[in-house]
C-alpha cells in the first residue's frame, strides 16, 4: 500500500490508500469499451479510466456494481495489495497441490 500524494482518487480526497484492481483486464476479456462499461455501471467514462489507472478509489456501491456486472466477488476485482496476474492466481492452487503431494 503506497499512500499517494493528492489521493488516488484524482484529488477528490476520499481516500489516501491505493486500491488495486483488475478492471482493465476484465473489461478487455468481455470486449467492453470504457464508454460501454461506464454506461453499464452509471458513471462517466472518465471515471472508468481513472479507476483503471489507479487514480481513483471507488465507493463500496460502485465496487459492488462492478462486481455484479463482472459476476465476480469484489475481492477478485479489488485488492489492497498489488494483484498477481490472473493466470498465476488461477494455476497457483494446482501448483500448491502438486507441491504438497
Amino acid at each position, binding site marked *: 500500500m503506497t499512500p499517494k500524494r493528492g489521493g488516488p*482518487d484524482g*484529488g477528490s480526497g476520499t481516500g489516501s490508500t491505493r486500491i488495486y484492481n483488475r478492471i482493465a483486464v476484465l473489461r478487455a476479456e468481455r470486449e467492453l469499451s470504457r464508454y460501454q462499461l461506464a454506461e453499464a455501471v452509471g458513471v462517466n467514462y472518465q*471515471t472508468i479510466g481513472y479507476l483503471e489507472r489507479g*487514480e481513483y478509489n471507488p465507493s463500496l456501491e460502485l465496487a459492488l456494481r462492478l462486481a455484479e456486472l463482472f459476476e465476480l466477488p469484489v475481492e477478485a476485482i479489488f485488492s489492497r495489495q498489488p494483484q498477481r496476474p490472473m493466470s498465476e492466481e488461477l494455476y497457483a492452487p494446482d501448483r500448491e497441490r502438486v507441491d504438497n503431494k
Partner: protein
Amino acid sequence: MTSSSPARTRSWGWIPVILLSLVIGAGLALGATTTNTFGLSNLLTFIYVALCAATALVVRRVTAQPGNWLGRRRVRRVVVLLVVLSCLLMVALPADGLGGTVLLLLLFLALCNVVLARATAQVAVSLPRPLDERQGSLRDRGYRLAYWLLAGIAGLLALVTYFAGSGARAWLGTALVSGPFIAFVVLAICLPTMIVAWIEPDQVMPAPPETRSHVWAVRVAAVMVATSLLVPLLAAIGVEVIPAQATQLKRYSSPAPKGSGCATVRRTTEIGFWFEARFVLDTEVCWNGHRARYLYGMNRSDCMASDWVLVSISTSQCVRRTKSNGTVEFNYTAWIHPDVLSFLARRLRVSVAVDRNGKVERTK
C-alpha cells in the same frame, strides 16, 4: 443491486458565462446610453447584449467533452494561470485606467471560463445529481478549496484595513469600486472551476465518438462564443481603420450685396462603426471680399466631440486663426481611443476654412 442509468452531465456552465456577459453587456450599454445620441449604436449595443445572452443559452445546452487537448492537466493549468494573471492585472490597474482595459480583460476571462468549463466537463457548475461519485467529490473539493481561498483573501483584506495606515485604507476604499473588486467577483464565480481544472489528472483519451448532431451543436456554440468575443475587438479595430465620413453643409443666412455675405457652415465628421465618435463644427461666417470673420462658433469650447460611443477622446490641438489673406480657419485635432483595446489610438484632424469671398476653402 440495480444498475442505474448512465450518468449524464447536465450543463450549468452558462451561469458564469451569462453573468460575465451581463456585466460586459451592461457596461457597454451604460457606456453607449450615457454619452451619445447615436440610435444605431445603441441598437447595436443591445443586439450585442442579446447575442451574449443567446450564446450563453446555447453553451448551456451543449455539453462538450474536454477533447484530447484540453484533457491534459498541463494545458488546463496554463489556462488557470492566465486567469490568475488577468485578475492580478486588473488589481494592478489604476482606478482611472479602468473602462476599456477592464472590458478587454472581462472578454478574455469569459473566454477562459468557457474553455475551463469545457476542460472540466462543467463539473464545478453542475447540480449534484447528474454527476457520478468521482465528479461529485471533485466538485466538492473544488468548492471547499475555493471557499478557503476566498475566505483567506477576505480575511487578509480585513487585517489590512485594521492594521494598515491611512494610505492602505484609501487604496482599499478605491479597490471596492474598481479593478480589485471586479477581480474578486470574477474569482468568486470562476474559482471552483479553476481549482477543478488544476487538480484533475490527465483525462482518459481518446474520448468516445460523438454523434453528428452533437458535433454540429458544439461547432455552433464555438462560433457564437468566438463571435461574441471578436465583435467588440473588430469594432475597436474599426475605429482605427474605417475611413472618416465627413459631410458638410453651407447655408446662406441672408441675402447680401455682391462680394459679401454670411453663411452657416457645419461640418460633421464621423469615425468608426458602433465604437464611434462624431465631431460637429458649427459656425456662422461673414465675408466682405477683403476678409472673413466668424460671428459665433469656432471657439475653444467647440473643441470637443458632440457624441461618442465606447471610445475616449483627448484633444491635442484647438486652433482658430485669421490668415493674412483674410481666410478664417479652424483646426481641431484629437486622439481617439476605443474603450476595448484602448492602447490603440487614431489621430483625427477636422478643419474648416472660409476665405474672404465666402468659399469654404479646404476641409479635411
